[in-house]
């Protein structure tokens, strides 16, 4: 295929779980679908999700009494009340269906074994009799920040098993996938999205895709933290970046960045929360379980933001373990025994062997917190329709839908990919059904010419500019050191200034490789400015938000401030515009009133207005920020007050 103009009904940018699940929905509705993917879809970063997928099936003893309302409650508390509660409710209601659907696609979920089972709970070995009548149902393991065992899993390869099953369905439906392609710009007329300009990563050439509906599902932007991330090298935020470039579509809550407590030192590779869920401990240099004293109730299974902060404090106070790569702590899963480790946590076993040469049944695992998840992303309404640009949708980590608010619970993102894929795919398909393909190819060729010129300009630039890889490394250092787990106004101001300098450097950077074709240096250079712009939105958003909520922690403003900051940050920044423009909208209709999460700090600044007054303003305020209407009334999917029956 060498044409410069391709047409399709539904264009899906991103071949991970969210994108592929959207594509299935659109194809099932009879649409022609094209998936673009940086890599063969089965290599997408969804495959790296290890521990589980949250869905309130309530199938084992420790899950007894679980239901979507409890899941909703955990999710909103986990978000530190930053989530859109209606979206959290939709999500919790549909997660069980999504998990069962994956079973139908072929995922070999780990099942309940009726009869006597051994588990580790808060450091004790416990024997529990699982009901014989539940034998063979999908079982659950414990994860952080949840009232019940809820994470459904396939050993420690849940993402892999899910991605392969969903991709099987994509192949079965005959959906076209073009791997090694990258969307580098959106095509739009100021009010409607018409497709995307794409760079072919085999040939280095560009082409345009015109579509009735376009879905961005490109995952997170963890690589703006350089090497300090669990994310794959492909998680460079390309989808969020091209949406930001429009200057019309806002990104939401970019400062909400999750740090995962247990990533391997020195490589930064993820070690699943399932290790702690299955009974693993965190130890300091004296081999003390510091989480028992710091969080007596949830211990190692408080939410990720809370555990990561405790770990950072322990290391800051000198109780970390010294290493040539800086201080770390220990994860201890030795007591789970080799059989458990080589079945239920097999991927952890392999990672320990391959990357630090240790046997986790005998040795402690060196870990510390590292960037892991992007709660922020392309701001969409509950249907997944992006603010401001009709026909543009987003799903999964690339989107700010926004069920995670300022902290995502473990296992909720994997579930989100499938649940939002079902919902957003359905709405994108419905949108495409009501549209005819726009034939004004002029705008598509203009966008194509702009993208080609951008690449040509990079190739033509000469002089003594810095290397793009050097700028990337400097960006990673600024982000981790100054926009990390603990943030202060002074450091954030420094970060903003340094990122500004790096943006200048990027405009003057010079390529050393002039090869035709892919040219890997050019491929990265074309993404670098977008990554720096995303970094800037994170740093400036964090500087502006003078409170602490979820993963965003300001040591100079340590309290959650529901009086002034019970809102969502929105940022717009057109590609040719000098400064980003920030605004704020209410988080959404509140059903569960702001309160204590059940872990972490219990101090906060209370709301001044009543919840009724807050809720009254939500539709109008969000509409002013560009939210496009759903066919459903706002708040219609909330089961108001249902939480009262289960709140503990």
């Amino acid at each position, binding site marked *: 295929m060498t044409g410069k103009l391709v047409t399709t009904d539904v264009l899906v940018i991103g071949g991970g779980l969210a994108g592929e699940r959207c594509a299935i929905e659109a194809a099932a509705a009879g649409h022609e679908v094209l998936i673009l993917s940086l890599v063969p879809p089965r290599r997408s970063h969804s495959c790296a999700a290890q521990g589980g997928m949250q869905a309130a099936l309530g199938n084992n003893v420790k899950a007894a009494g679980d239901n979507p309302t409890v899941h909703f409650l955990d999710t909103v508390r986990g978000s530190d009340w930053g989530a859109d509660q209606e979206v959290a409710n939709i999500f919790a209601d549909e997660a069980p269906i999504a998990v069962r659907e994956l079973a*139908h696609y072929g995922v070999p979920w780990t*099942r309940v074994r009726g009869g006597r089972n051994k588990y580790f709970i808060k450091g004790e070995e416990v024997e529990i009799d699982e009901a014989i009548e539940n034998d063979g149902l999908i079982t659950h393991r414990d994860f952080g920040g949840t009232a019940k065992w809820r994470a459904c899993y396939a050993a420690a390869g849940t993402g892999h098993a899910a991605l392969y099953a969903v991709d099987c369905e994509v192949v079965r439906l005959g959906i076209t996938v073009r791997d090694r392609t990258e969307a580098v710009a959106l095509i739009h007329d100021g009010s409607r999205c018409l497709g995307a300009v794409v760079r072919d990563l085999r040939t280095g050439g560009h082409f345009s895709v015109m579509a009735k509906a376009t879905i961005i599902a490109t995952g997170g932007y963890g690589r703006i933290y350089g090497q300090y991330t669990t994310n794959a090298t492909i998680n460079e935020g390309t989808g969020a970046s091209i949406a930001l470039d429009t200057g019309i579509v806002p990104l939401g809550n970019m400062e909400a960045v999750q740090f995962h407590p247990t990533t391997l030192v020195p490589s930064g590779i993820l070690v699943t929360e399932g290790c702690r869920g299955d009974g693993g401990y965190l130890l300091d240099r004296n081999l003390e379980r510091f989480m028992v004293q710091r969080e007596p109730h949830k211990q190692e299974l408080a939410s990720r933001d809370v555990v990561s902060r405790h770990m950072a404090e322990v290391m800051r106070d000198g109780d970390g373990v010294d290493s040539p790569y800086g201080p770390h702590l220990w994860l201890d899963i030795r007591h789970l025994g080799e059989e458990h480790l080589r079945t239920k946590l097999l991927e952890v076993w392999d990672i320990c062997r391959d990357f630090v040469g240790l046997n986790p049944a005998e040795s402690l695992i060196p870990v510390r917190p590292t960037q892991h998840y992007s709660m922020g992303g392309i701001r969409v309404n509950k249907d997944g329709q992006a603010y401001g640009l009709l026909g543009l949708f987003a799903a999964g980590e690339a989107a700010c839908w926004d069920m995670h608010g300022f902290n995502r619970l473990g296992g909720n993102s994997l579930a989100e990919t499938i649940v939002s894929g079902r919902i957003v795919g359905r709405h994108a398909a419905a949108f495409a059904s009501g549209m005819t393909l726009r034939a004004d190819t002029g705008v598509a060729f203009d966008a194509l010419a702009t993208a080609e010129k951008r690449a040509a300009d990079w190739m033509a630039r000469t002089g003594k500019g810095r290397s793009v890889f050097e700028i990337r490394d400097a960006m990673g250092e600024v982000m981790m050191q100054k926009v990390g787990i603990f943030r202060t106004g002074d450091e954030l101001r420094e970060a903003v200034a340094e990122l500004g300098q790096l943006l200048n450097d990027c405009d003057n950077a010079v390529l050393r490789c002039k090869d035709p074709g*892919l040219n890997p240096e050019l491929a990265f250079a074309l993404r670098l400015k977008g990554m720096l712009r995303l970094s800037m939105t994170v740093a400036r958003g964090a500087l502006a938000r003078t409170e602490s909520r979820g993963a965003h922690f300001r040591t100079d403003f340590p309290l959650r401030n529901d009086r002034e900051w019970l809102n969502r940050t929105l940022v717009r920044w057109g590609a040719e515009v000098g400064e980003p423009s920030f605004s704020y909208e209410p988080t959404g209709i509140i059903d569960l009133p702001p309160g204590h999460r059940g872990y972490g700090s219990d101090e906060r600044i209370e709301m001044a207005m009543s919840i009724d007054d807050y809720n009254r303003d939500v539709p109008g305020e969000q509409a002013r920020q560009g939210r496009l209407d759903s066919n459903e009334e706002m708040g219609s999917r909330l089961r108001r007050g249902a939480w009262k029956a289960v709140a503990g």
Partner: protein
Amino acid sequence: MNEKNTARRLRFEIFRYNPQDPDSVPHTDRFELDETPFMTLYIALNQIREKHDPGLQFDFSCRSAICGSCAMMVNGRPALACRTLTSDLPEDIQLYPLPAFKLVGDLSVDTGTWFREMVERTEAWVHSQLPFDPAAEEQRMSDDIAAAIYENDRCIECGCCVASCGAANVDDKFLAGAGLNRIARFMMDPRDERDDAQWFDLVANEQGVFGCFGLMACADVCPKELPLLEVYGYLRRKSLSAGLAARRK
């Protein structure tokens, strides 16, 4: 952490060819690097690209041996580059692209097209007449069967087995370890309703289990240590019993 004392100077010989460049001819380039503790080929290749030759093509994504992007020939043997520690290699390291796949450039090969074609040809998905009922409880499965399926489901489609396979290198339609493992994975899945005759047509031929020379290099090089010997045994047994049953009819 058993950090090794590393002061070695590593000498790399790397295959180069850019099919998009009319002036490019296949050759090898040499690079040298100082070894550092826990250095993997992921770290080494990125250093070479960033310090010596920004045009060097290779594929990495997860860099944790899960995504299967980075298989290449390391001193003559297919391996995942991301999890190959340089400390396990001699000072002279030869890197070539995997054979049996179309070359994209330098160390990068097109595994995506090969695997998509394999999945289409073997119809590697659950064949079930049952529609999905969103209101129903999940279909039950014993945990032992789920664990057995998972064991074979772990293939990451890196292509090491294909590259190491004598049959796959002479017949580009031979299913190789990954393809046959994929068939076995669905054959043992009780949700898949294909009958013996359908499986027989798929697997009992020269491009399936009877095309194997029996060298079993696939089992030696599989980074996930999939039970490929058992897979071959299982498929041959199944083919035999299906064949005998057909004769009795």
